[in-house]
């Protein structure tokens, strides 16, 4: 090992570990970024439109303007993340050159490649990718993702899909823990995932990178639900700045994520937050972002 070495996998996964137990908030302006940091966000996701607006506006959703990302970077001292389209490695190159701390290869943006994700080992900056099930999570890890998040269904304010994805991923991890060595070959085949990762999972009982929850968190109770199910941290997209009182709600979700096992604290922070984002049911949407990714 050269001394010192940047961009190694332990260095990438290390930042994901540091974000554990925290809340990563979507922000579209420097002012929102400041509100998020003041409320205790452990990182912000800089983007031009929150998922609820992307859903409303339709059209092609792309990487944000570098000026906008830099404006947010200049405002806060916490890590800044930004989104690239699935498979759009040039957007990722641009985001890396801006000095962003984490790249989200995100299904919320319109995919640029319908067969391939980005080869994340080619980058020094860490990547987070969404997953709906364990096979998808392990495929992303094999491509170099340093963090996995549930996809949920972004921009809906509806937690049901994130719960489905967390239960699927964590349930299969528990089942693999019970499997014997011969059964692991079949698990790898069923999951369409690399065998060594399945074997490692059976040995350790957990993913080799942190698992966070994203997609549909709108309330402190939603955040605590994700944490009790086994997520290690939460992303909140539209849920904060599409609500009546973003400052109070942001702060309450941070408290709920830390004290996720303490119902007294959860009751206290859930009071008087004003209206949450309205939200939409799964049968009311015509485009499921979670289906993007392969």
């Amino acid at each position, binding site marked *: *090992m050269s*001394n*010192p*070495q*940047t*961009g*190694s996998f*332990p*260095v990438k*996964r*290390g*930042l994901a*570990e*540091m*974000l*554990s*137990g*925290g809340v990563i908030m979507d922000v579209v302006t420097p002012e929102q970024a400041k509100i998020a*940091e003041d409320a*205790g*966000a*452990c*990182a912000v996701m800089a983007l031009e439109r929150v998922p609820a607006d992307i859903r409303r506006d339709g059209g092609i959703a792309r990487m944000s303007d570098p000026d906008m990302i830099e404006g947010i970077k200049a405002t806060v*001292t*916490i*890590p800044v993340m930004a989104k690239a389209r699935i498979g759009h490695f040039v957007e990722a190159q641009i985001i*890396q050159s801006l*000095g962003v*701390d*984490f790249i989200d290869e995100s299904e919320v943006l319109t995919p640029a490649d319908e067969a391939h994700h980005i080869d994340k080992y080619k980058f*020094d*900056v*860490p990547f987070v990718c969404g997953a709906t099930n364990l096979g998808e999570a392990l495929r992303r890890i094999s491509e170099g993702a340093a963090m996995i998040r549930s996809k949920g269904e972004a921009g809906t304010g509806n937690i049901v899909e994130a719960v489905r994805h967390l239960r699927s991923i964590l349930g299969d991890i528990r089942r693999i823990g019970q499997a014997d060595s011969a059964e692991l070959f079949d698990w790898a085949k069923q999951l369409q995932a690399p065998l060594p990762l399945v074997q490692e999972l059976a040995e350790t009982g957990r993913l080799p990178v942190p698992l966070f929850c994203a997609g549909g968190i709108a309330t402190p109770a939603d955040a605590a639900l994700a944490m009790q199910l086994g997520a*290690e941290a939460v992303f909140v997209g539209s849920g904060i700045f599409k609500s009546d009182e973003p400052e109070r709600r942001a702060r309450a979700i*941070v*408290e709920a*994520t*830390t*004290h996720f096992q*303490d119902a007294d604290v959860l009751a206290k922070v859930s009071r008087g937050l004003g209206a949450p984002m309205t939200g939409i049911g799964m049968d009311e949407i015509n485009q499921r972002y979670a289906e993007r990714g392969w």
Partner: protein
Amino acid sequence: MNIGILALQGAFAAHQRVLTDLGASVTLVRGVEDVDGLDGIVLPGGESTTMSMLLDSSGIAAPLRERVRNGFPVFGTCAGLILLAEKIIDGRADQQQLGGLAITARRNGYGRQIDSFEASITICEIENTFAMNGVFIRAPRIEEATGDVEVLGTVNGDVVLVRQGNILGATFHPELSDDHRVHEMFLKMVSRYHNDLEQAQEVRS
């Protein structure tokens, strides 16, 4: 031995895995009531601004500060070290401080994530000298350490591991490597502290 790990935000689970491997029992500290009955406490890495806010709202800041002042064994890594530093550069004005380590720490002193690195650290303690791999994540930089602070570890001339009394502080993340010797060092400090306390009590009685 019952070691508390501040679990408000950050890499507390990684510390928990290491300490459990080393045979310690672990209490995740999220409320004031969790601070009682501990033999020592670990302040993990994470975002120091987030932790400082939650230290305040949970009410843990005051009792923890008092313990640190009275010589209670504490081990801070990265953001945890920032909480213990007497002086911080590039922090937030409203950041909670526990103090106790007479150092000046610059937050994100090596730059952003793209500058985060792994490096071989030379560690010199009285009993032994060894090299270990250290992971530095948006690490703070110790810009100054007064004479009361023992320098235990360096990388290319930079101070990365320090001790003052019963406080151990690292700018890197020993909890992210398979080498547990820094945690062992802390557990030794904890048992020495409690042996000394017991002896003092025996002398008094």
